[in-house]
């Protein structure tokens, strides 16, 4: 241990040098405070023995300067003093001294004090090394988290339509990573899929589950799969990748302006609230299912609630972080307080902001303890879809060629799978008419559901005329579909190229022919209802007519042929 002695008394200095030298410590010596400070910088000793009264600079000032420049390094300073009064000793400590030694020196005391200082110094060095290491780790972790967050938000937000005109959303993550997942995307028929997922816990571990979920959400939505299909796929994925103690409380919603339908699947999230044009609560949709990622799904677990969408209604959805937010008195915001806003006193278009303000005031300075998400869907704006084609754009252009594909679906298939995504995917991979996917999908979907609902299941569109009838219609549909034992739907798609001579404009015509084995339906009557400007139902045929060059019904109405032309400049 290298020791610096700062003492103007040469005899003292000599005694100390001898004492310490005998113990094997190298010693350097300075004879005044100023030299002491200089020598400290030159020699970098491990311990300083400091006299107090000295010329040019006293011991207190020298000790202060040494301690200041030592910063993180621990250099113990022991004052050598003749004073024994409390005030004098306190002053030593105050100047940065670590201990003091009273003159005349006792060898044993000196030795043990040096040993004690050595122990503290070692401890200090160890601690400081660990601190450095910890800081390095912290830096590294922070950098990795930043990269992770960047990747995460890009993947989860890819194609997110949270800025859709009908949506208002607010989310407040507890940490860098959000354990609440909020996504929205249009399906090929222009329906909006919305999902709020709340993973167990928060932070990074909660957020990683969001990656596979978001991929399934965007991918299956773009392909035209239904909410039930999405739920089933996500559940299966989470079951395989997530540990038992983690799950995802979720709510999936489909708003289909064209069908005027609202489809809700709620597994583990708080009640979804629907509010009317006066801002009053009309409906609460409770959680019907287990959260995603707990058990394998049965048919019942896929079940959705279907309602007629009322254009002047709004839907409010939140994660439990909102209702469980605490104030300083440890009270929760609560469902009751939230529903209190839906009493008709706040105009519906101001509810979203009013609730967030209310939450902010309620919470005050209380710290946040969970991720919070809050979302409003304004149905009156839900027809304003972005003009843009689906987010999974392909730039590949396939030159138009003649082709023909046909499908035959029997009752067994129709009962168990929705064949539409497969059909549209076949068309898209054969021809990929850019910008036409949505329209072709819509035509196929309408033709197919007409064939199924009216042809095979014998459902009556007129049932849908009232909101109650609307619910009844879908209940009947589900019941009859489950009981369906026979029947077929045959679909044939024929494409022929229709390019201009100079090839400046390419395109083609797709003939869609669909035939069901049902008894047919009154398509002439449907036309007359259409002409009579009906309110609900029967919309499908009008829609197909508006998009196709031609729509003709044959036979007893169980065969339809539509032709659709596409061009690409």
């Amino acid at each position, binding site marked *: 241990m290298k020791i610096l002695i700062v003492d103007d008394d040469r005899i003292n200095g000599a005694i100390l040098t001898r004492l310490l030298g005998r113990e094997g410590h190298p010693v350097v010596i300075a004879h005044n405070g100023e030299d002491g400070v200089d020598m400290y910088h030159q020699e970098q000793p491990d311990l300083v023995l400091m006299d107090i009264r000295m010329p040019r600079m006293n011991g207190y000032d020298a000790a202060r300067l040494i301690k200041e420049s030592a910063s993180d390094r621990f250099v113990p300073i022991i004052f050598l003093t003749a004073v024994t009064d409390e005030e004098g000793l306190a002053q030593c400590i105050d100047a940065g001294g670590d201990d003091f030694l009273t003159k005349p020196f006792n060898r044993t005391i000196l030795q043990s004090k040096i040993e004690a200082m050595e122990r503290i110094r070692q401890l200090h060095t160890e601690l400081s090394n660990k601190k450095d290491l910890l800081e390095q780790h912290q830096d590294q972790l922070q950098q990795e988290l930043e990269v992770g967050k960047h990747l995460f938000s890009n993947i989860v937000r890819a194609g997110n339509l949270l800025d859709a005109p009908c949506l208002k959303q607010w989310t407040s993550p507890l940490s860098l990573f959000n354990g609440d997942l909020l996504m929205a995307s249009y399906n090929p028929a222009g329906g909006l899929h919305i999902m709020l997922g709340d993973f167990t816990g928060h932070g990074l571990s909660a957020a990683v589950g969001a990656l596979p979920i978001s991929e399934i959400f965007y991918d299956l939505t773009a392909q035209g799969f239904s909410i039930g299909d999405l739920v089933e796929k996500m559940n299966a994925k989470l079951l395989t990748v997530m540990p038992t103690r983690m799950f995802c409380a979720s709510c999936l919603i489909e708003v289909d302006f064209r069908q005027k339908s609202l489809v809700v699947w709620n597994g583990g999230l708080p009640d979804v609230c629907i509010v009317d044009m006066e801002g009053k609560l009309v409906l609460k949709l409770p959680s019907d299912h287990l959260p995603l990622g*707990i058990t394998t799904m049965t048919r019942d677990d896929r079940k959705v609630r279907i309602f007629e969408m009322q254009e002047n209604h709004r839907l409010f959805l939140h994660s439990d972080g909102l209702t469980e937010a605490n104030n300083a008195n440890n009270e929760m915001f609560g469902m009751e307080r939230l529903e209190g806003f839906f009493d008709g006193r706040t105009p519906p278009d101001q509810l979203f902001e009013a609730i967030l303000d209310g939450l902010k005031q309620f919470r005050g300075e209380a710290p946040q303890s969970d991720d919070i998400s809050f979302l409003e869907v304004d149905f009156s704006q839900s027809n304003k879809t972005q003009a843009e084609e689906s987010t999974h754009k392909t730039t590949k252009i396939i030159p138009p060629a003649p082709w023909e594909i046909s499908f035959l679906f029997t009752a067994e298939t129709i009962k168990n799978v929705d064949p539409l995504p497969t059909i549209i995917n076949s068309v898209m991979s054969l021809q990929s008419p850019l910008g036409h996917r949505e329209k072709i999908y819509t035509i196929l979907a309408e033709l197919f559901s007409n064939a199924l609902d009216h042809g095979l299941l014998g459902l009556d569109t007129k049932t849908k005329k009232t909101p109650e009838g609307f619910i009844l219609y879908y209940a009947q549909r589900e019941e009859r579909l489950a009981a369906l034992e026979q029947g077929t739907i045959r679909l044939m798609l024929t494409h022929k190229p229709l390019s201009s001579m100079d090839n400046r404009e390419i395109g083609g015509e797709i003939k869609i022919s669909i035939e069901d084995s049902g008894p047919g339906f009154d398509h002439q009557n449907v036309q007359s209802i259409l002409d009579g400007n009906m309110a609900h139902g029967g919309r499908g045929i009008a829609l197909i007519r508006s998009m196709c060059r031609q729509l003709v019904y044959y036979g007893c109405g169980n065969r339809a042929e539509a032709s659709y032309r596409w061009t690409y400049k």
Partner: protein
Amino acid sequence: MSGTISVTREESETVINIKGRFNFEMHSQFRAAYQEDTGGDKKGRRFVINLAGTEYIDSSALGMLLLLREEAGTNESDIEITNARPEIQKILETANFQRLFKIS
């Protein structure tokens, strides 16, 4: 502040009493409470989770219940959750846990 756990063991039944806040900080305590009674040849044992003194429950706590269910044999497990106060009952219902556990 998290809660405390006490366990009473009988012939074929383990009662786990949870007081205070049942959240992620209770993870190792909760696991320790049931671990010696699960796994291997110990199937068929009954577990009672007594929430009489539980003030708060979060989603990590629900996750711990799922873990107990798995370690006690998933569908063959016999787990009853009792004495939950109304707010906690509501949380269990929202998650539809009545389908996985007996809740009384």
